[in-house]
């Protein structure tokens, strides 16, 4: 195609119809972006429409809508990046941004693509129009009903706060090789937060659900489980104590304990840190980095899961990448820049928070494959340690390898049995050491459906994680004591 309209057969016509972004506009922008001799350029158009509705004091009394529209323009010269964006999709404003990004280069003009070619991609979630609008006639009674059910479930419940979110993000990515890709990414989230009071004491708990699915995601079984989890765990807090401090064996329950992988190895495998030589895993490719029990994948193709992506934010198809296979490091997480640097294919991990940011290697759904043991067997193997169930935020020091994550609830293990409930304790360890100390892996892999967001250099992207029950033979527990 020389100029004029984008092919009508593909949904990328959305940006043409809504905002007048034609093939001609794209050629002009790419041509401006390459005018100083960049060797690669891409355009990232984004239109996000999000709706949020909230309940407090048994009334649905808050709501908001957000529209986030704009284009990000990136120019590469070798490993160097020029980046600019424009919220306005007027040609003049976009050309200005293209000129700014172009300035990273300082040679003669490079040639823009002659043809634009759409890419077809496999889909891992319903794509069109799921959350363009939130059906209030359905959502409002749903929230009120949830509030009533949470209060009826336990007389200790004093406060219920609910937050519901539905959004649709449409992205069009065109690069200087002439490839263009379009995706429409739905996201919904529901968060419940309760406070209970018993005598003079109060305890609070949260639970969230998130997916790239339609309203049908909130089926009865899932809602029932959410309510029972949040009330039961909050009630347990009244009897929970901080565990003792120091090094001990820790059993991580199946599901959201995947935060161990996210922090202990996931970030360290993001190829930008390795390209720069600053990750502790920088010289570990093909080497043993974990015990042979451990196989870790990062996948963008789990049906409807929060971290799934049909395409990444550089237009590469979402895919499943084996990071660690039976303890051996097999791949980093790549974006376009790092794949080019390492002469490998991109892994579909080039992601960004919005058009305001250049993409970076980021995780999607990161999980460990199941092993041969059972949960009972693993707990039975520990004479004195912790069993951790719900988790909060984590962090990692990429170069030193030290990672940390917060445990909200769990139990003490004494002589192979779960005993007293525990709460509010930070775990800290060293990634490479802990991965070698994973001595048992169970057969009960669960992918977590909570609304995890991964932060890096100030950018947040939706992710998920998962893990079977595992035993880490030694972790430092920030409890009370000595």
């Amino acid at each position, binding site marked *: 195609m020389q100029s004029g309209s984008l092919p009508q057969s593909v949904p990328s016509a959305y940006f043409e119809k809504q905002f007048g972004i034609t093939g001609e506009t794209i050629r002009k922008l790419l041509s401006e972006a390459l005018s100083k001799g960049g060797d690669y350029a891409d355009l990232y158009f984004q239109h996000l429409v999000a709706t949020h509705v909230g309940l407090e004091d048994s009334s649905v009394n808050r709501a908001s809508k957000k529209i986030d529209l704009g284009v990000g323009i990136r120019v590469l010269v070798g*490993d160097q990046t020029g980046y600019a964006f424009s919220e306005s999709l007027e040609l003049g404003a976009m050309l200005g941004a293209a000129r700014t990004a172009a300035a990273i280069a300082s040679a003669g003009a490079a040639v823009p693509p002659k043809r634009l070619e759409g890419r077809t991609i496999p889909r891992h979630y319903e794509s069109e129009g799921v959350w363009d609008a939130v059906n209030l006639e359905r959502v409002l009674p749903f929230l009120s009903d949830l509030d009533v059910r949470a209060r009826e479930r336990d007389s200790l419940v004093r406060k219920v706060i609910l937050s519901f979110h539905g959004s649709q993000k449409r992205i069009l990515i065109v690069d200087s090789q002439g490839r263009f890709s379009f995706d429409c990414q739905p996201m919904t989230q529901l968060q419940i937060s309760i406070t209970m009071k018993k005598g003079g004491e109060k305890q609070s708990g949260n639970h969230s659900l998130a997916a790239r699915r339609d309203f049908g995601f909130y089926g009865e079984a899932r809602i029932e489980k959410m309510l029972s989890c949040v009330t039961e765990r909050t009630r347990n807090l009244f009897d929970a104590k901080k565990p003792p401090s120091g090094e001990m064996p820790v059993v991580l329950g199946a599901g959201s304990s995947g935060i161990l992988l996210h922090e202990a190895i996931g970030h360290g495998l993001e190829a930008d840190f390795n390209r720069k030589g600053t990750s502790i895993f920088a010289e570990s490719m093909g080497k043993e980095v974990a015990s042979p029990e451990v196989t870790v994948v990062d996948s963008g193709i789990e049906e409807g899961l929060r971290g799934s992506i049909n395409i990444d934010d550089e237009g590469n198809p979402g895919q499943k990448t084996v990071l660690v296979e039976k303890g051996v490091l097999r791949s980093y997480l790549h974006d376009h820049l790092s794949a080019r640097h390492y002469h490998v294919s991109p892994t579909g991990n080039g992601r960004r928070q919005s058009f*305001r940011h250049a993409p970076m290697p980021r995780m999607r759904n990161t999980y460990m494959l199941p092993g041969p043991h059972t949960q009972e067997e693993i707990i039975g193997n520990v004479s004195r340690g912790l069993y951790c169930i719900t988790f909060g935020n984590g962090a990692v020091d990429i170069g030193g390898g030290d990672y940390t994550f917060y445990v909200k609830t769990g139990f003490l293990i004494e002589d192979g049995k779960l005993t007293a409930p525990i709460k509010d304790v930070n775990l800290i360890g060293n990634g490479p050491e802990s991965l070698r100390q994973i001595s048992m892996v169970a057969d009960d892999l669960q992918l977590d459906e909570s609304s995890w967001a991964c932060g890096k250099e100030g950018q947040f992207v939706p992710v998920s994680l998962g893990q079977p029950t595992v035993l880490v033979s030694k972790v*430092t527990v920030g409890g009370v004591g000595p």
Partner: protein
Amino acid sequence: MNRDLKNLAQQTLETALSSGAHEVAVWVSKKRFISLEVRDGQLDKIQESFSSGLAFSLYVDGRSSTHHTSDLRWDSLRWLVDEAMSLTRHLDPDPCKGLADPELYRDRPANDLGIYDGGHEDLDTQTRLELAHALETGAREVTGPIISVTTNVSDSMGESYRLHSNGFEGTRRSTSYWMNASVSVQDLDGRKPMDWHMAGARVFSDLPDPISVGASATKRALARLGQVRLPSSKTAIILGNRAAGHLLEQFVGVMAGYALYRERSFLVNMQGKQVGSSHFTLCDDPLLYRGFGSRHYDRDGISARCRNLVEKGILKNYLIGVYYGRKLGRPPTSGSASNLVLPPGDKSSRELIAGVSHGLFIDKLMGGNANSTAGDFSVGIVGFEIDQGRIGRPIGEMNLSGNHKDLWHRLVAVGNDPYPYSSWRIPSLVFENVSISGT
């Protein structure tokens, strides 16, 4: 503020009112941002943007909602106002919603906050690039097993305009400049510790010497070599000025009106009571000259006032905005902190260290969290051993834990070194007898 954006705000307000809203607040903002990153002597990344956005809150028959957009085409805004009106009418009424009482807009300060540098537009790319290279030169003047040096120079100029249908109108304009050097070094055991040093200012001429900033980053990174873990114990700690604010965040976070109303605060019903030692004073000072959090009015339009949140250990004021003020039946103060100042003591961090016979100097916190309802906290720590009043081996992979209802009573001394590069000006803090966990 640009005339077009102001007009757009006014037009949005009028449209909402004529569509049936009883009250409306609109705010618009625009920002120019430039960031330049140099890695190992080569320009790695330039980012530059002009951005703008509009947001508004509608109040219709006791119902309310808030909306944000970056699509400033009038047709699109008009559509959003209609959508917003219809969304709002579906909600349950809430008598506490509504704009602030105009009384709260009165006596707005007009002093010069010093937060705008008129020379910002004259700063050119060459100067920024020279700064970034100077940071690296400084970093490499310190010798050691350096793997990589990344330096970043960024600056921004922002303007905002706020308009309320009951008589509030305000504008704010500010600039800020930042520089940062991050240095990765090679340890003998394969670890690659990284540390950084950053500095920022409201006006360009306030930035410190880039050579010294770069050099500090390398010194910090080299000091991390040979990290050890100590046994769990109860000990004295000094929270360095880079780390102190992070722990204090968990305390200040639950002073917010919403946390109190939701009973997710360990400070409920503590006004007038002792929440820390006599060394613990905390002032919210919106009028601080050249402060990163300085302002003449807050998000509700409430005129800025300096007030103590904590005074010699006694909780004096919460951070309560208009809405949760009505919910709680209390007069609002402000829904968010501006500049938080913990008044400095008279000892340098070196003197504080000399006063501790055995303990830890904590330079960074890592991850961790707190239970806002009960006050329990547990966080990762990175720092140094203190042995006989001197800095000893670097420590890491350890935790600090306790309860905020107890911790601040253990504050025994405050340094003379408030962290200058944040709206939170918190000096180094000394606590006695707190729990750390390690081997």
